[in-house]
């Protein structure tokens, strides 16, 4: 019966057949893991700290990308979840003297609950209104953290000091190496889980709702529940990153979580690639290293340099780094 339909135009057909530019995924994994382990042996401790921070930002940006990139709910307030996660970790370590690893699931769960609480009413807000509402969250959180009534826990303006954990079982690693390993391991786990999620019916539903809400409903997708749950999961992941950041930086204070942090995460998402799983890795590297680079180029106006690099990036890579990687096979073939 199909042959009775008109044939597709040849332009489409030629684009369909993909000649064999394929890399064995196992090889990619091996290269990736080797690259991740390399800094342990080569990088000095400050560089290792920067890489740890980049991995943490990558996790946070991944969280943002789930809700904004894949589900189409623009959040300019994810720094708030990052801050809550960081404070949960700091308070658990400093005030309750709990083991460092226990702070990570706790921060994730608490941020997930907060995310659910914010995601539910946010359903009524579309597009720019949601963006502004989440942004007001980002503006409010640093001030809430200074609130006198909770000063005993949060340390008020002073913040809370914590210490990095030592490597257990007498492993021959210093604190920075150990934390790098932990962070990269957690990041790897979160990224694999996110990839699985996005390849599943849930991931498809998230994208379907973004693309056409009415049709998504007709396909049996419960938009209210899916959007709220996506917001919660997204907050969970970003909160987990926040907890890691408290441990890595060994300090939390209201000033570490200004509203610009939310914008930084957003920039990382766009630079890395909206609605991409690996994009946030490049986003994390960008937001950690490019400001430093800008500072090296010009001490007096690093913001200007940063802005120029950012614009150049968006100009050269409109789909983010992930967009370039997606086009790479085609570009190589054309040679």
């Amino acid at each position, binding site marked *: 019966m199909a042959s009775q339909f008109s044939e597709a135009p040849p332009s489409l057909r030629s684009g*369909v057949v993909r000649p064999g530019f394929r890399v064995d995924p196992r090889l990619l994994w091996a290269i990736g893991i080797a690259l991740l382990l390399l800094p342990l042996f080569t990088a000095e401790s400050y560089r290792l700290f920067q890489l740890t921070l980049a991995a943490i930002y990558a996790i946070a940006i991944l969280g943002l990308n789930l809700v904004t990139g894949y589900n189409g709910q623009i959040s300019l307030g994810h720094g708030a979840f990052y801050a809550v996660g960081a404070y949960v970790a700091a308070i658990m370590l400093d005030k309750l003297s709990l083991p460092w690893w226990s702070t990570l699931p706790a921060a994730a769960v608490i941020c997930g609950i907060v995310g659910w609480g914010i995601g539910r009413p946010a359903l009524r807000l579309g597009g720019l209104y949601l963006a502004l509402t989440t942004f007001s969250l980002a503006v409010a959180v640093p001030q809430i953290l200074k609130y006198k009534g909770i000063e005993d826990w949060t340390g008020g303006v002073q913040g809370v000091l914590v210490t990095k954990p030592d490597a257990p079982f007498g492993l021959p690693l210093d604190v920075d190496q150990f934390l790098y390993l932990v962070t990269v391991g957690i990041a790897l786990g979160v990224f694999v889980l996110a990839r*699985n999620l996005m390849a599943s*019916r849930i991931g498809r*539903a998230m994208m*379907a709702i973004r*693309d056409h809400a009415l049709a998504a*409903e007709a396909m*049996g997708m419960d938009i209210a529940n899916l959007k709220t749950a996506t917001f919660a*999961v997204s907050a969970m992941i970003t909160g987990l990153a926040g907890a890691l950041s408290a441990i890595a930086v060994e300090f939390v204070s209201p000033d570490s979580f200004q509203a610009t942090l939310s914008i930084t995460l957003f920039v990382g998402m766009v630079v890395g690639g909206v609605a991409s799983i690996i994009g946030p890795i490049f986003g994390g590297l960008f937001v950690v290293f490019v400001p430093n680079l800008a500072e090296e180029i010009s001490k007096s106006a690093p913001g200007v340099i940063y802005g120029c690099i950012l614009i150049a990036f968006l100009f050269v890579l409109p789909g983010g780094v992930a967009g370039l990687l997606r086009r790479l096979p085609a570009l190589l073939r054309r040679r």
Partner: protein
Amino acid sequence: MSGNSAALLEVRDIVIRFGGVTAVGGVSFDVGRHQICGLIGPNGAGKTSLFNCISGFYRPSEGQISLEGQKISDLPRHRMMGLGIGRTFQNLALFRSMTVRQNVLAGAHSQGKAGFLAAALRLPSSTREAREAEERARALLAMLDLEQFAEIPVAGLPFGWQKRVELARALISRPKLLLLDEPAGGLNHSEVDALAELFHDIRRQFDLSILLVEHHMNLVMRVSDKVVALNFGRKIADGTPAEVRATPEVISAYLGEQAHAA
């Protein structure tokens, strides 16, 4: 479930008002099991309003709609697919950034159960149901000759092919009732000719009923077992294509100009 004699879809005394305007004023009809039913009427007759009511997108102001004896007119929209009502849209409502295959798989959403956790951890239950859905998607893509485009973003396909993706997306959940909103709209002659045969094939293979709203009179009369004609929000005829074509009200309201022309 009601007995064999009962209709699959029962539409009873449906009234739809928008503000002070009555778009549909008390329409009743049935769609039987395995039946292809055409819903026709001139522009503004209320077909689309009625169609949207059956697919759950509008709530009727009065009356009720039942599928297999179960009242569905007060259920939320996202329940319809799970109950066995699949639909296509008049002006295409595909997930444009997703590939053809992803679009078709999205149609299987209501048949899956895996939640966030099961999907992220790839629990056996979730991978099993994903494999089943992928198998059905593969079969549908093959049946509709869409395999070659499976990995292309759907927005890149020509209109007629996108309509086929919509059909595959509606069929993957194995609906009992398929609602088609102007399936011939925007298609060329040969494509419309192929549709009638396609609908009969689909009915046979998927064991379903079809309700279509369609302007293309030729197609409706050729493909339908039963035709319901509306005018000014009221039913003016209900019967076989031959009966409906012979009804004086239909001739004057709808086929009149065509009869003159012929």
